[in-house]
């Protein structure tokens, strides 16, 4: 085969390939494959694929020509949130995210990868400070997976098979949790029961909670802030109701709020979960997500974690510190089907980026970012509420709120289409997810928006609705 050696494959040089074949005593790779794979399973033709692009320049042009068509928060004014948020990313986060050592490490040991282990441990340390807990692990895939793992932990701890969740939670996240809970007739199935929310405030309906909680309830799960942006201020009461029924309290959080909002440990959370993406990770079309779990440092909780957890330790050298895997026996790497759920390749790099973010911001930065989000989003709430026929819902919120245009004859998707012609991405259309909220757009404002951005949005919206 007279072709150029591929730059990613050193041994594609024909002479080297031939020498290796000679050393292993084979005529050809076909002969070697024939020794291992039966003839009837071998593909007897070349694959039919587009011509290869081994030259970097050609490849770059091909892929970037396709991706150049896309728009993003860089060239539009975006008010999308709802589980993946447009936040300020410090340059140092990007710098560390691109470091080849972290980017390409994987499963090395705790000597050769000391830095990675310490970074994982420091993520645990920093997120624990935000949520007021003492144990966390290497993050999982997303908030939904974290919540799924957390409610399953609660079910195993209590040996109960029902979990209560707010009806106001993200339907997509609920679907992830439901798939974790195995809501079928198979043994071990956990029933997911929705608790109503107050249509005026968006907060959990405690009357409905009292009706539905029972001695079968493994946990009450609620969020702060919730999918619809609502700050749930009845945490203590909810926790009280749950604990009196012998249930665990699981709270899902957006940690970027925790510089100014009370940590869930203050109002009775037993297990905290949430989304890491706001802490310095790019949205990446949703690929920036990472979920976490945290709890008190009690053996019975630690025993139920599915993910890898890093502990600090000493070395034989006085004053020197090392790190390693804590309580590893519980993981599926050790116990296979008898493990606590499963562990795999998740989102460790996003955890490291988040740790960089938290160490850059410090207590003052976390307070500042929380305040900026609260003030700017409330400014938008006020500004937009002044538009005729616009009804903004749930005034007790953080970063996002439903903006309802039921009083007009227009639909959210029509309005968003026109906004897009002005390079504005309006809030997420939630009319199908929450029909009871009518034609509503979940409108998200963060610290990246300026007063001018918000005013422009209000102006354009007013013009469309006029």
């Amino acid at each position, binding site marked *: 085969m007279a072709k150029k050696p591929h730059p990613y494959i050193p041994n594609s040089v024909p002479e080297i390939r031939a020498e290796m074949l000679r050393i292993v005593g084979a005529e050809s790779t076909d002969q070697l494959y024939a020794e291992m794979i039966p003839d009837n399973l071998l593909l007897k033709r070349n694959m039919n694929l587009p011509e290869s692009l081994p030259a970097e320049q050609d490849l770059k042009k091909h892929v970037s020509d396709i*991706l150049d068509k896309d728009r993003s928060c860089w060239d539009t004014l975006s008010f999308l949130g709802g589980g993946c948020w447009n936040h300020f990313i410090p340059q140092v986060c990007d710098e560390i995210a691109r470091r080849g050592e972290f980017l390409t490490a994987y499963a090395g040991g705790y000597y050769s990868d000391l830095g990675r282990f310490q970074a994982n441990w420091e993520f645990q340390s920093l997120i624990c400070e935000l949520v007021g807990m003492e144990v966390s692990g290497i993050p999982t895939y997303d908030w939904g997976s974290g919540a799924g793992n957390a409610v399953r932990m609660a079910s195993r701890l209590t040996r109960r098979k029902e979990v209560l969740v707010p009806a106001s939670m993200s339907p997509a996240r609920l679907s992830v949790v439901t798939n974790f809970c195995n809501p079928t007739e198979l043994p071990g199935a956990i029933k997911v029961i929705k608790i109503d929310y107050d249509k005026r405030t968006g907060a959990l309906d405690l009357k409905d909670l009292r009706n539905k909680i029972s001695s079968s309830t493994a946990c009450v799960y609620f969020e702060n802030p919730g999918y619809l942006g609502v700050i749930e201020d009845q945490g203590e009461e909810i926790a009280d109701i749950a604990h009196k029924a012998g249930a665990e309290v699981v709270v899902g959080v957006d940690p970027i709020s925790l510089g100014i909002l009370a940590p869930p440990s203050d109002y009775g959370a037993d297990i905290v979960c949430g989304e890491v993406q706001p802490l310095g990770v790019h949205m990446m079309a949703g690929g920036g997500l990472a979920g976490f779990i945290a709890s008190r440092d009690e053996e019975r909780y630690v025993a139920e974690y599915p993910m890898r957890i890093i502990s600090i330790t000493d070395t034989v050298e006085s004053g020197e510190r090392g790190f390693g895997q804590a309580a590893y026996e519980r993981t599926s790497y050790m116990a296979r089907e008898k493990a606590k759920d499963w562990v795999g390749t998740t989102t460790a790099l996003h955890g490291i980026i988040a740790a960089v973010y938290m160490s850059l911001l410090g207590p003052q930065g976390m307070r500042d970012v929380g305040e900026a989000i609260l003030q700017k989003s409330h400014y938008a709430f006020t500004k937009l509420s002044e538009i005729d026929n616009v009804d903004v819902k749930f005034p007790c919120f953080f970063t996002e709120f439903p903006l309802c245009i039921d009083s007009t004859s227009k639909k959210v998707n029509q309005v968003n289409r026109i906004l897009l012609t002005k390079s504005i991405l309006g809030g997420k259309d939630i009319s199908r997810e929450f029909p009871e909220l009518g034609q509503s757009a979940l409108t998200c404002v963060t610290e990246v928006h300026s007063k001018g951005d918000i005013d422009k949005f209000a102006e354009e919206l007013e013009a469309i609705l006029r």
Partner: protein
Amino acid sequence: MTDVNVRPYHAPVWSEPLIHELGAKGERGVILPRVEPEIQDVVGETDSLIPKGMKRNTPLNLPEISQPQVLRHWLRLSQMTLGMEMEIDLGVGTCTMKYSPKVNEELAAMVAGIHPDQPEETIQGLLEVAWRFGDIYLREISGMDAFTFQPPGGSAGAFNNAIIMRKYYEEQNELVQRNEVITTIFSHPCDAACPATAGFKVITLYPDDETGYPSIEALKAAVSKHTAGIFVTNPEDTGIFNPHIDEWTRIVHEVGGLCAYDQANLNALMGITRARDAGFDMSFFNLHKTFGSPHGSSGPGSGAVGVTKDLAKYLPIPVIVKRGDKYHLDYDRPHSIGRVRDFLGNLQVVVRAYAWAAAMGADGLREAAEISMLNNQYLSERMKEVPGVTKPYGGRRLDQVRWSLDKLKEETGCGINEVNKRVVDFGVQSFFTSHHPWVVPEPFTPEPCETYSKADIDYWIAVLKKVCQEAYEDPEILKKAPHNSSIHSVDSTPFDDPKRWAMSWRAYRRKIK
């Protein structure tokens, strides 16, 4: 064969403090975007916007550090991490530690600012890349008909397939009866743990002593009217290809079961043999292994899933479809399992995988497969020079071999744990052993994929040979290792002691410091 000189090495020793031990009160790493005074004029004080009882009252104990010192800390930690790019990482088998082309990082970064809920017409490029990767490349490589990229890791792909299996039998009204999944001990643990999490009872088949894979008789004895399906890798994590795999899928189909293929070990099979042709109904692919996306210190990855036409209706929503020359996110799928992860999955990983596959083309993919297989034959040949190493089960292996250091352990007292502590002294990453249980005693599983040159393999072998010779000559060197690492031998006893473990600065301060 020429002898290779093992060069001296020492890992960086920064003795880096913990992040909480750095900085001083009042230092700032970054300043947040300003809030215009007019905004404050309108909304008033922040406190008035927070409901009573929800304001943070407990001080937030994060470190206070200026930007240069924060950067320095994380750079030092990165330097004390032996990433794949830094060394000959072929010892970390089953993981396919292949080169992640730098240009692909630039291309992936192009999607960083996209929100997943943007209207379809604003992300046609991203959807096109994902569609092309699935419907052109993965389709041709696997023979499967429909694809999803929502599972964000390999194990999540296995979970996704377990949920599809569950949904399938639920719709057939057979779930109560079909509650058993069969796997093999040399398949990845996720092939047991994910079906178990989905609610299935798991039956594990053990290998025949001679061949290294379970016999057809063992499978026949395990299948019944209770069989929901099988979850297997092939080649298994031993590198052994089960040549009767099409017979296996036939046997499972005959009792009404489904066949799920864990293609984590696809690398040496691209263009050689296909999942569909062996009779599988669904399959997942680790884009962070086979398709060159970096492993990210353990994620984000992607467990892309391909299924047959019959199972396509169960894929998680949304599915990326092409109609005319436009790409769409199809949510209108009443039989879908719903979601296994929020939004669309890790599409930045799919961009990298697409770029990798596009750079290779049909010939390049096959070349990567052939060379990874040939590299493994070459490494196996050279392994004969290393004392104390044996190869349980006979026969040729595809992409890797699960070797044993049992002989070394018996003869010197040093097994894989001691060898692993010592190889790092030469700048070689400690080896992947095996998941548990260790059916092969004192295991290690190198996978010399197409990234590694003949000279790389020679060097790696030279390091292993030197370490094993040391074990015979002076085992204390191994037992007291590492000697040239960032730290010395750790005390691992706190890891399983609730009184002494500490998973955070808070716990460390309370319990230890």
